[in-house]
């Protein structure tokens, strides 16, 4: 662990803080792009109840893709850089978010949805004001699962010459510097925990107390 605590490794353009930020950057941007694609798709299919097989098929197909293979394919097509990394990571993040959203919207009590229509909400209102807010716990479930995978897998960015904590792993491997490799792995694990805690906090802020298990939410 000496490598990790060496002050020389905590500054400069190849230092730990910068690599951490790069890694966090890959993760957050990936999650935003994946959410923008997966949540509307999952919500739409969940709301209409049509095309559920598309969601399941697409999810399974995407899950079966080896991320490294996707990365190499995109590098061959578009060249080195950040772009192939984002393509590979977004494809990795979509299935759990989409499945969570779809399942969450489907799981909303049909009586609640019937009442929403019955009191005069338009379809958009039913989806945005009732189904999505009630599906949030499951949407977050999928989202946080995806985020963990993305943090772990973002190490492969270094494989194509990009940055992130993967640098320490790949460089350590090339130099037979196992201290550096271990430091990289530990930092990835720590970041994963932090990212998950961050999203857990966001979930607490945005999910209605009425959806927490009975007895813990709201004021009695």
């Amino acid at each position, binding site marked *: 662990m000496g490598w990790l605590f060496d002050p020389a490794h905590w500054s400069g353009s190849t230092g730990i803080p910068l690599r951490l930020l790069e890694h966090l950057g890959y993760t957050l941007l990936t999650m935003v792009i994946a959410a923008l694609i997966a949540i509307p798709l999952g919500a739409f299919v969940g709301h209409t109840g049509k095309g559920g097989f598309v969601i399941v098929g697409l999810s399974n197909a995407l899950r079966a893709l080896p991320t490294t293979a996707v990365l190499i394919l995109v590098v061959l097509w578009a060249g080195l850089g950040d772009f192939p990394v984002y393509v590979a990571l977004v494809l990795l993040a979509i299935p759990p978010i989409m499945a969570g959203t779809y399942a969450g919207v489907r799981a909303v*009590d049909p*009586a*609640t949805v019937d009442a929403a229509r019955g*009191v*005069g909400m338009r379809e958009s*209102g039913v989806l945005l004001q009732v189904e999505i807010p009630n599906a949030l716990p499951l949407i977050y479930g999928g989202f946080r699962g995806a985020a963990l995978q993305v943090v772990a897998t973002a190490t492969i960015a270094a494989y194509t010459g990009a940055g992130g904590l993967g640098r320490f792993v790949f460089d350590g491997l090339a130099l037979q510097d196992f201290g550096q490799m271990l430091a990289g792995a530990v930092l990835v694990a720590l970041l994963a925990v932090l990212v998950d805690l961050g999203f857990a906090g966001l979930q607490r802020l945005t*999910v209605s107390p*009425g959806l927490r298990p009975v007895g813990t939410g*709201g004021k009695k």
Partner: protein
Amino acid sequence: MPGYAERVKVVGIYIQGGPIGVVVATGGIRRVIEFRAVTKRFEDGTIAVDELDLTVEAGTITVFVGPSGCGKTTSLRMVNRMIDPTSGTILVDGKDVLTVDPPTLRRGIGYVIQQAGLFPHRTVLDNIATVPLLSGWDKRKARTRAAELLEIVGLDANFGKRYPAQLSGGQQQRVGVARALAADPPVLLMDEPFSAVDPVVREDLQNELLRLQAELDKTIVFVTHDIDEALKLGERVAVFQTGGHLAQYARPTELLAAPANDFVASFVGRDRGYRTLTFLHADVPVHPIDTAKLGERITVTDWTLVVDEENRPKGWLSGVDGEVEVREQDLISGGSLYDGTTLRGALDAALSSPSALGVVVDGAGAVTGVVQAGDVIQALAKARAAGEVPK
């Protein structure tokens, strides 16, 4: 409905054995609902409703009752276009519902469903304010209105901040009713609203609905599979038969006295003679009864009614010889009490009493005397002779 809110005015304050609240009602707007040759055939070919012709009178509770698959719920849901008919016309206040955009139509018609269907992520107050907010009221006015409604349906103000999951089934259904009434719609559709709660709570909710209706004068369509509920709540009852046929549409007393066919007769049930008594209020002679209090020494000759300090019945004493002290452990518990309302209550009090004497109580629960089953039968005969029982 634009301009709707402006017509809302305060019509009075009521104090009636419940919460004190301000009743807000629409000034004199009463809506008739007409079904004209309405048929609903589903995609799989089943006919849910078959050529339904029926007029729901303004300002009444009309109950659609029947076994499952009889088309009662489908008929109800066609009124606010949750389902559209295959053919035929439904008019609300003379206007064909098919010419109105469904969300706009629904905002003007209260809707209460089984299990209440509250929005779990919204507080009780926000649930109630849903329709006013959808109709463009400002937030403060909607909240104020929601708080009023909470009182009207008999819930304490501190329920407003809670979430539906923190409420009992009965409380949730009260909120469901409040949500339906929030924008003061002249028409209310209630789809088996009380069938998911226990019998005691159900009776409370039924009585509450009758009390509310006496104040609000809405046109209410109420769907149930429970014939007792139908007879209790309905001013008019439409009995639906499997296959979507309307078997009979009549007042409860007519339904009991003269079922239109075998189906109605069997659906109304074998004890319909007994149920008829619910609708009769003829006088039954009240006989005096010996009473005693706990701790007194009395000579028991026949059945003696033991009462508490406020003269409320505690139980019966019998089967002892000579002078005894009245002790709690010797009491035989009594049957139901007759509060002087319907003949059914009088007969039940007599039949359920160990002494065969039905205890009559006044509004405060104090004993005023006893009734006997024979007197009830005579009162029924008198009512029959006077033409009060429909033939």
